[in-house]
């Protein structure tokens, strides 16, 4: 049993067919997990996208007394100032979604660039980049964002930038691990002998080999972006107050939980379903991608989500010693 598994693994590893990100996403979308994740996330995206067009009232209009229970006029009742909860829910998601996607895209792009550059150029560049990554890691994501917000004030671009920057170290470590392996391969050396410029080698030769791990990383990072961004809004450092926002709705309507719980319950459910959906789909993509390269290690899979497996030599040794990553 055990030996068969080992042989199978080794066989898969030596073949190591290159599978594109499109195929990985498609296969992931057809697994059970992928279907569940995609439909949950899709549902919330639909609410956030269509919501503003079907909202019965303006999100800032006063339609009744504060914390009025649901009625035919206001299906989910009113909030702390007497505004329609339903309209605010329908209007309060799209900014969060766009900001989360933007922060993730910027963060993953910067992280991949940093990781590839460090792995290819080595030497002093490598040391400086990876050291800086360690330094940023010493700030918890939310604290890093809070630090920046405390200086410049709660600006939306700043929050996007702060969250993007806080993603960079982990993405850089993951891409560094993969890129370091690719840099050793003969075709890179061949291109060097052909006199191809370093930046072209990094973009044209190394990057394409990293697309699949980067897609996997994008899914994981997107969940974190949504969580941190909604958390910042909850703390009151998101969009400025009159604008509706799921995170801030939860904290502003908390006091009236006993009179009209819907102003808290509905945004909480929407955020929960969104993060669960995105994370479940991300997990499905990670599983398919790991299976495709013959790394069916549960430790590596679970670890990649929390940052234990980061391609750094230290961790890999530990995992190999523990009987982990082949």
């Amino acid at each position, binding site marked *: 049993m055990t030996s068969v598994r080992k042989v199978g693994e080794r066989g898969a590893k030596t073949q190591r067919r290159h599978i594109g990100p499109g195929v990985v996403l498609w296969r992931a979308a057809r697994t059970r997990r992928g279907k569940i994740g995609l439909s949950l996330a899709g549902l919330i995206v639909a609410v956030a996208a269509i919501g503003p067009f079907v909202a019965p009232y303006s999100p800032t209009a006063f339609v009744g007394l504060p914390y009025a229970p649901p009625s035919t006029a206001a299906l989910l009742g009113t909030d702390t100032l007497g505004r329609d909860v339903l309209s605010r829910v329908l209007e309060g998601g799209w900014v969060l979604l766009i900001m989360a996607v933007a922060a993730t895209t910027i963060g993953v792009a910067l992280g991949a660039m940093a990781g590839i550059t460090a792995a290819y150029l080595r030497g002093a560049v490598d040391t400086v980049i990876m*050291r800086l990554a360690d330094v940023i890691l010493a700030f918890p994501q939310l604290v890093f964002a809070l630090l920046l917000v405390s200086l410049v004030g709660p600006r939306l671009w700043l929050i996007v930038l702060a969250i993007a920057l806080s993603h960079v170290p982990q993405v850089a470590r993951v891409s560094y691990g993969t890129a370091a392996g690719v840099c050793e391969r003969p075709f890179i050396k061949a291109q060097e002998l052909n006199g191809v410029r370093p930046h072209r080698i990094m973009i044209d030769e190394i990057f394409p080999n990293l697309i699949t791990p980067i897609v996997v990383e994008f899914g994981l990072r997107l969940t974190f972006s949504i969580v941190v961004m909604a958390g910042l809004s909850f703390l009151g450092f998101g969009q400025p107050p009159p604008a509706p926002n799921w995170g801030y709705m939860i904290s502003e309507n908390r006091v009236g939980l006993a009179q009209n719980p819907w102003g808290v319950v509905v945004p909480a459910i929407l955020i929960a379903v969104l993060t669960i959906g995105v994370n479940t789909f991300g997990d499905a993509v990670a599983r398919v991608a790991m299976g495709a390269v013959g790394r069916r290690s549960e430790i590596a899979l679970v670890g990649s989500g929390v940052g234990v497996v980061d391609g750094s030599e230290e961790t890999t040794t530990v995992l190999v010693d*523990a009987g982990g990553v082949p």
Partner: protein
Amino acid sequence: MGLFRSMRTWRKRSPLVQLLVSRVWQGIVTLVIVSILIFWATEVLPGNAAYAVLGHNASPAEVHSLEIQLHLNRGLFAQYVSWVAGVLSGHLGTSIASGVPVWTLLKPRLVNSAVLAVAAGVVGATVAVLLGVLAAARKDSKLDDAVSGFALATIALPEFVVAITLVILLSTVVWHFFPGVSVLAPGTYPWNAPKLMILPVAALVIIVVPYIFRMTRAAMIEALESDFCEMARLKGVPRGRMLLVHALPNALPPIVQVTALTFLYLAGGIVIVEEAFAYPGIGQGLVNAVSARDIPVIQAIVLLLAAFYVVVNIVADVVVLLLTPRRREAR
């Protein structure tokens, strides 16, 4: 000379000492850069601390007098050196918002947060490892499916959603078992009011368990499928002994790593949970300080959290080394 040489051979002999020296050194470098970054960010970025405190429409005279009070009129390097010297001798400055020394302000909060984080970490890690071992032992059973599914769902939940769900279920709308806010009177410590601790600790435990559970389960499954466990099984070692004596010790290094990461995460997650329950810890202190633009308090809390990160990382590396015989021996 002789001492130097013996130190060198000593370092070469023991991987533990080697690791400690390199990690402590790296940690110091990290902290120095972190302190420069914090300092640079808070003093140099748009305007300076004086503008940050007074707002951007402050009169130049007001700004100037505050600049003198905060020593902003001196050179940057001199400011940095005096700040670091202050931090190292325990003088973290004076809170701008309240006029109280930062340390006096932070000490009770630090105790409160430490109690909360340690309670959540210990309870969470225990529950998670137990569940992980059970799920791995009965892989693909109903129990495994249920707990794994629950973990996959809760791992993605934002902290405030967990907190608010607990408040809705246990303290306001559905039942009224526990108080919904955990306001400690000044001078009261959390161990004097255990009932107030239950919900914040529960929220953090729910957030922490999935990570450690998933790693424990994965590491245990890999250990159980290894050759030496196969061997033990063929020899007829009893199931319980096999789990706890053969598999678990080999699964520990990644579990320790993920637990360390979880503690690091707690340093950030605690901010939201404390704010959600109005619990007077450093997380809530940070949120208040950010709202009030109380720069000295922000600097102190962020630096404390970074130091915490460095220390936890070193401890985790050492524990992992001690748990891994092959790496413990000299190479």
